[in-house]
């Protein structure tokens, strides 16, 4: 990574919010990259598990291969995130996080539980990641940061497609309708209350963009828009009723994160 963190240079803000000191902005960015390191390591484990489960169900070997490759990609992504966190002054812990739990509700048959896992991990989370990376790329001026974001974006597109591919398979087998009532819980687990609540001044700083992090309000807006314009239409196309999910989202938007 080259030189001082981009975005630390002084600049007059265009709005009346208090200016966060550059080190506070750097700390927010470092914490974000540390969190992403954890997310990527968890994804590495999750995709390896998913590959095994897809294989055991006898699905197309090409999808098993995509899941295996995704696991390897995520390990590489975690290394990028660790480097960026260290560059911003917050090295990641020496030990990896514990393996993530499965997220599907209990009581589902294995095929449906796998569909739930793939929709949560790929159709929702990886699709959201692509949207975030796409928004970050034009603002990244540091060549090393830009290269890392570009590499991640290319991989995450494939990871998202794995979920949409599996959902198409499930739709062809008439096994997607069960997802509708579960979507609010899935989305609650994806976006915590903090996303819809207020944030401190440093978390809203436009200077974060140059460090590869979206300001809080932009992140929230992008999350909502991606759900409304990409995820929900995609799910509906596969025969999933998104009424409950849309109701949940409307409640979140109206109540600023307190709706259940």
């Amino acid at each position, binding site marked *: 990574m080259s030189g001082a963190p981009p975005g630390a240079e002084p600049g007059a803000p265009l709005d009346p919010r208090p200016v966060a000191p550059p080190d506070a902005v750097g700390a927010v960015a470092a914490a974000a990259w540390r969190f992403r390191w954890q997310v990527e390591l968890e994804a590495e484990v999750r995709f390896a598990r998913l590959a095994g489960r897809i294989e055991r169900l*006898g699905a197309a070997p090409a999808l098993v291969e995509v899941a295996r490759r995704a696991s390897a990609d995520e390990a590489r992504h975690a290394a990028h995130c660790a480097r960026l966190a260290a560059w911003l002054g917050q090295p990641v812990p020496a030990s990896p996080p514990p393996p993530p739990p499965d997220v599907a509700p209990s009581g589902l048959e294995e095929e449906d539980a796998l569909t739930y896992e793939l929709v949560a991990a790929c159709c929702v989370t990886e699709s959201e*990641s692509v949207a975030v990376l796409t928004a970050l790329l034009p603002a990244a001026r540091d060549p090393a940061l830009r290269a890392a974001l570009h590499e991640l974006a290319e991989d995450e597109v494939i990871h998202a497609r794995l979920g*949409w591919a599996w959902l198409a398979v499930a739709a062809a087998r008439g096994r997607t309708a069960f997802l509708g009532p*579960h979507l609010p819980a899935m989305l609650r687990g994806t976006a915590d209350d903090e996303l819809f609540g207020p944030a401190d001044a440093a978390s809203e700083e436009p200077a974060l963009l140059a460090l590869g992090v979206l300001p809080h309000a932009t992140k929230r807006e992008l999350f909502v828009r991606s759900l409304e*314009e*990409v995820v929900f239409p*995609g799910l509906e196309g596969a025969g999933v009723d998104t009424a409950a999910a849309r109701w949940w989202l409307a409640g979140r938007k109206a109540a600023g994160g307190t709706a259940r």
Partner: protein
Amino acid sequence: MAQSNKPRANKLLRVLVAGGVALAGAAGTARAEDKPATESEKTAKPADTAAAKEQAKKEKAKAEEKAKAAAKAKAAESDGGGVKGW
């Protein structure tokens, strides 16, 4: 702002969702249980009727037991969760 972002969202929908559907098509979606029966399966001898009846009875009892267990599990089932991302 919302207007200018619309084409980007549509592009994402195309790239991700349509790309995934294309991936499913290219990968071939047949599963072992969906494959047509092989010649040897087609020509297999029919099972003895009495034995078949007994087997069907056992399977029915097993299915009922499984349904009861599933109902019990459903009563205690969790809501499910989501996956944190960027």
